[in-house]
């Protein structure tokens, strides 16, 4: 099993010419076959953490290492599709060789867009676009998917549907996922492990029971939610 290990990670940005420290010696260990949800309020540094793991940005100090070579995929908050390519072409955007037709058809069926293969992004709804961007990451068979608030821009119902779909895809593909969110219910719905992030540090970790049919309104999850809210001092 691959593990992601992060030690003493530092990163700051210049805010009005003053350095602002986003990540302060962050430590983290995450197995790459689970869904790890990093939960925190806006500005706590969770997106920065994800961008550092993905290599989009470089840390000032500290290490990010995998126990074995790991292919990474990323899904952003916005779909970021190429507006000039149709659904099929967008899904295959990162491929060097054409995808096997069957696999592609199956993937399009999985994301529920059969019949929309030739549609341009502008003609799709936000939820559909985000599913295409998910498929674009999935077709590369990455071992670990990094997801930066992938469903934040979606309405409640679409978001619930996408979360269920993600769980299904996760079960089918065994892809590990690190997902960043500020939505506690989303974290409870998806996570095997929840890490709460505050002021550039992971402050608390919960391992959730491996449960296929999760009812986040049932007792153990309500207790988790209470704990999380207490940790975040929202109450």
């Amino acid at each position, binding site marked *: 099993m691959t593990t992601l290990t992060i030690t003493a990670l530092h990163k700051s940005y210049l805010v009005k010419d003053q350095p602002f420290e986003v990540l302060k010696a962050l430590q983290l260990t995450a197995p790459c076959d689970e869904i790890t949800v990093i939960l925190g309020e806006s500005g706590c540094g969770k997106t920065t953490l994800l961008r550092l793991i*993905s*290599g*989009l940005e470089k840390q000032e100090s500290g290490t990010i290492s995998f126990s074995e070579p790991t292919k*990474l*995929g*990323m899904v*952003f908050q*916005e779909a*970021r599709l*190429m*507006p*000039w390519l149709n659904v099929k072409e967008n899904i295959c*955007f*990162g491929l060097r060789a054409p995808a096997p037709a069957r696999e592609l058809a199956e993937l399009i069926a999985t994301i529920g867009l059969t019949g929309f293969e030739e549609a*341009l992004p502008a003609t799709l709804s936000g939820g559909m676009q985000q599913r295409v961007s998910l498929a674009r990451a999935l077709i*590369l068979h990455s071992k670990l998917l990094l997801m930066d608030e992938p469903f934040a821009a979606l309405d409640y119902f679409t978001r619930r549907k996408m979360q269920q779909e993600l769980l299904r895809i996760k079960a089918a593909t065994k892809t590990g996922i690190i997902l960043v969110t500020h939505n506690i219910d989303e974290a409870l719905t998806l996570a095997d492990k929840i890490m709460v992030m505050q002021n550039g540090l992971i402050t608390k970790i919960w391992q959730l029971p491996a449960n296929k049919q999760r009812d986040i309104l049932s007792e153990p999850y309500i207790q988790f939610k209470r704990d999380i809210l207490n940790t975040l001092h929202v109450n």
Partner: protein
Amino acid sequence: MLKTTHHLKSTVLFFLIIVVWYLLAQAQIWSAFVLPGPEKVLTAFSEMCQSGELAASIYISFRRILIGFVIACLLAFCFAITSLLFPKAKPYYDGILNFLRNVPPLTLIPLLILWFGIGETPKIIVIVLASFFPLLLNLDTGFSGCDTRLLEVGKILGFSPQENLKKIIFPYALPYIVVGMRIALGYSLRAIIGAEMIAASSGLGYLILDAQTMSRSDKVLVGIIVIGLLGICLDFLFGLFIRHSFPYRTEVTS
């Protein structure tokens, strides 16, 4: 259907103008020299068609426009690609381009005659100068304005700089390129009069200037109308070419 009604609508005003023009000319408020009637213009038009004068002028002007336009396109692409590939080189030529962009091409005519004589060269240079800058500005916007969020997708996918260029930057810039070319084509057409002020003995611009000195207002009007129609035709052909080559994003380019 929608297109047909659109074309019909656009002819209404033309028709009205011709009717008003005809009535005004019939009323003989102004002399036929100041305002020749449509029928006089039509007669001049058919005379010029028969003598072959018009066809020859159109051919020669068209040739100049196209040569100038193609040269302007090549130059603009060279500069835009250089700015894209070597952003550090840009400040070196940016200033001089900015300077030249603000100089009206017509003001260069005396010097162009001195340096290049009265042949084809100075005429084409005027057209190049008129159409180069609008195109370059569009190309620069298209190439440098590429959405960084899309470029990050390329980075995550491990694209090489060449792949980035081919799969993200160029397709992103394409609508700007096409719009820039369309505008540049219009500018090169509009520059033809200026270009043919340089001791020309042929071409539509010359035709108009010559008719002016001969006090043939009807011929002047024929020249103006032909240039306008030629512009519409060129734009239409260019639009066809765009729709045929880039079926996506027609909303941006049409």
